[in-house]
């Protein structure tokens, strides 16, 4: 029963006052970010990276993790009450959630969203604890060839699950890989594509690019549409949080299905909370006896996606903690946070840093509990925050981001670089390129290059090593299979259908 010993150890770490405080701060900031549209999880985590400098590593990661799953809760609140999804993950929740609110059932909708999220969070926490150790053992059997193939698989997953054109998603990944090569070469020390600019010698900072592409670009894009976003604030009195017996009966299977689906999609590289909530909603609609109820206030349409996004947000920590491979952009930033604190993510983290890993896992459960308390009774406060007009919010975000980037390295050039990447991100948005695969490519770039080089060095330049080693061959075969499937017309249509759901 090593598992329980580990979990007990984790709770001992997570329950220290400082870590509890960090968890609370993370959950609060996450909820705030989730509630406010126009500022996303990725930008926030990037913005808060420098803040974690002064903190002990465990506390820092607990806080950052709290922001990620806290945002999933916060996003649902505004989706339901005012039909403004604060996060991409709760876009589908707005469809049925807001209808319920219009019918005067905002209370039950909020309660079910919270209960579903909490349940999913608990399951995901246990899943991380259970899967952590065996996956770590598996990871130790991995050689460079297998690592390379695994990362290829991860990137292909990112392509399959990305929105829009497959070609564009692959191009974004390769663009990210190229960006990751700016700076000194690890093996030879040669300066690559740095144009003799000393600030580029160390490479492009990951947080810098993330902040530009997700923070600044998003602001510029929002300004396009005019600062006054459509916010018809109809603040209902929320009466009676308790769902009826029928609500509970209807939503229990939906919560279970959403949790399972979300957990799986979270573990898969390239997945994450956004795709999980879409997929869960689509699944519910498919298997419902009476699909026409959806869009008119079906409680399953709230329960399933909310459980799924929370489950996915947490299980996406599994590949990061066990294999050292971030499955999505937020996890990539977590890698950044870990490296700042001198921790190299990978299979050895579990053994060498048990405090960190198990403390973080335990804190997720505690954080979920806190989030229920933060969200349900305080719902009025969060909604009131939406009254802050965007014309005041966006300059504040710009300044906060600028100070944040500056303080990472005390380098003014980083701030300008982030601005340039803001323009790049704006350009990407205009041409319908998705920035998330770019970020994933950028994080995996150095790892991929290193393992590719090492694998070829060991095999003495023989490229067939990726196919002759069984594990690597299987991984590559899955990747190829997925890519072929995605390009097939039948599946393409289905994939587009899932995404168009979000549009209306």
């Amino acid at each position: 029963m090593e598992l329980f010993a580990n979990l007990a150890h984790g709770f001992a770490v997570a329950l220290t006052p400082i870590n509890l405080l960090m968890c609370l701060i993370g959950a609060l900031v996450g909820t705030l970010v989730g509630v406010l549209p126009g500022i996303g999880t990725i930008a926030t985590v990037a913005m808060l990276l420098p803040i974690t400098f002064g903190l002990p590593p465990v506390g820092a990661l607990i806080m950052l993790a709290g922001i990620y799953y806290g945002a999933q809760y916060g996003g649902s609140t505004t989706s339901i009450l005012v039909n403004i999804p604060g996060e991409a993950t709760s876009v589908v929740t707005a469809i049925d959630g807001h209808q319920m609110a219009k019918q005067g059932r905002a209370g039950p909708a909020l309660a079910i969203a919270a209960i579903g999220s909490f349940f999913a969070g608990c399951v995901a926490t246990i899943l991380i604890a259970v899967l952590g150790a065996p996956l770590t053992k598996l990871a130790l059997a991995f050689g460079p060839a297998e690592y390379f193939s695994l990362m290829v698989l991860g990137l292909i997953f990112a392509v399959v699950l990305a929105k829009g054109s497959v070609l564009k998603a692959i191009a974004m990944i390769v663009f990210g890989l190229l960006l990751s090569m700016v700076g000194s070469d690890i093996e030879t020390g040669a300066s690559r594509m740095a144009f003799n600019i000393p600030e580029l010698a160390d490479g492009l900072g990951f947080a810098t690019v993330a902040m530009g592409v997700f923070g600044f670009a998003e602001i510029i894009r929002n300004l396009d549409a005019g600062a006054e976003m459509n916010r018809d604030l109809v603040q209902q009195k929320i009466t009676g949080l308790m769902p009826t017996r029928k609500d509970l009966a209807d939503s229990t299977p939906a919560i279970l299905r959403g949790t399972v689906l979300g957990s799986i999609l979270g573990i898969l590289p390239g997945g994450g909370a956004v795709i999980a909530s879409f997929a869960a909603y689509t699944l519910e609609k498919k298997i419902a006896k009476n699909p026409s109820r959806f869009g008119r206030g079906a409680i399953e349409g709230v329960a399933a996606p909310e459980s799924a996004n929370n489950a996915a947000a947490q299980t996406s920590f599994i590949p990061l903690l066990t294999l050292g491979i971030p499955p999505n952009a937020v996890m990539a930033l977590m890698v950044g946070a870990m490296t700042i604190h001198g921790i190299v993510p990978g299979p050895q983290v579990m053994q060498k840093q048990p405090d960190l890993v198990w403390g973080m896992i335990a804190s997720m459960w505690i954080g979920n509990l806190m989030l229920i308390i933060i969200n349900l009774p305080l719902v009025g406060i969060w909604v009131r925050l939406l009254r802050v007009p965007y014309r005041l919010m966006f300059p504040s975000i710009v300044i906060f981001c600028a100070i944040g980037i500056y303080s990472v390295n005390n380098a003014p050039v980083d701030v300008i670089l982030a601005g340039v990447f803001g323009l790049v991100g704006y350009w990407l948005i205009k041409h319908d390129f998705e920035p998330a695969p770019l970020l994933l490519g950028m994080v995996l770039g150095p790892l991929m290059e290193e393992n590719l080089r090492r694998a070829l060095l060991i095999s003495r330049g023989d490229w067939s090593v990726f196919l002759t080693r069984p594990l690597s061959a299987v991984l590559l075969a899955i990747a190829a299979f997925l890519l072929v499937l995605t390009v097939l017309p039948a599946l393409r249509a289905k994939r587009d259908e899932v995404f168009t759901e979000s549009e209306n």
Partner: protein
Amino acid sequence: MADTMGHSATATRNTSVAIGFCLLAVAPQIFEFIWSIGTIFGWGAGRGPATVLISHATALLAGAPAAIFGSVGGDAKKASSDVLLALIYSYPLFVVAILTFFMTIRSGQDYIGGTMLMALALFALWASSDLQGMRGFSFGAGTAPRMFGGLLVALGAGIALTGLLAEGPALSHYSWRGPLFVMASIVFFALAIRPLGVVVSAFASFLIAAMGTHETRWIETTIVGACLTLGCAVLFPYVLGLPMPMFPRFLVQ
């Protein structure tokens, strides 16, 4: 619906796209020229504007063609970096620009996006052209960048091709006000933070950024900006203990 728009509209559109690509093809050269003007005033180290102009012009007009024919003739003379830039980056883009004249662009969004991605990749190929390639079976510093650069050129070309073959959205509208003022605010902050400190640079940047929309009401913006500046001045240096100057250097001394 696109057909009823008339053919002349596409034709004029094509010309401007082609001209845009030609400009893109010499953008690095132009950038270096503008940058080199600074050396007159003693900013930065680099070639003077006259040298830049002459060397790029000769590279574009004479050096690169000579290098092409030279390499055909078996001349192994090492080409200079300006000639390589013309060869690797500018010429392929000129070719694309010329081809653009004869094409019907079905989706401006894809065609222009793909081509610009191609330009980025070509530029990366040029930037990594001075790095060492494969040494036996081990990777040199330049192998991976060239590999991914080549791949990105192909992908960019593929995307541009879909823009020619399949109907799709036209180039969407770019606005100037938001990007301009947000960028100005960021650049101002970067330049001012060292000499002027957090208080002045944050407040001024806030006001500059606020100009990004015409809906700004100045009184409330000033008040919020002041409060935010105060908050940041307390939060970052004191609560979080991050080292940064608070006030302008000349006031502190």
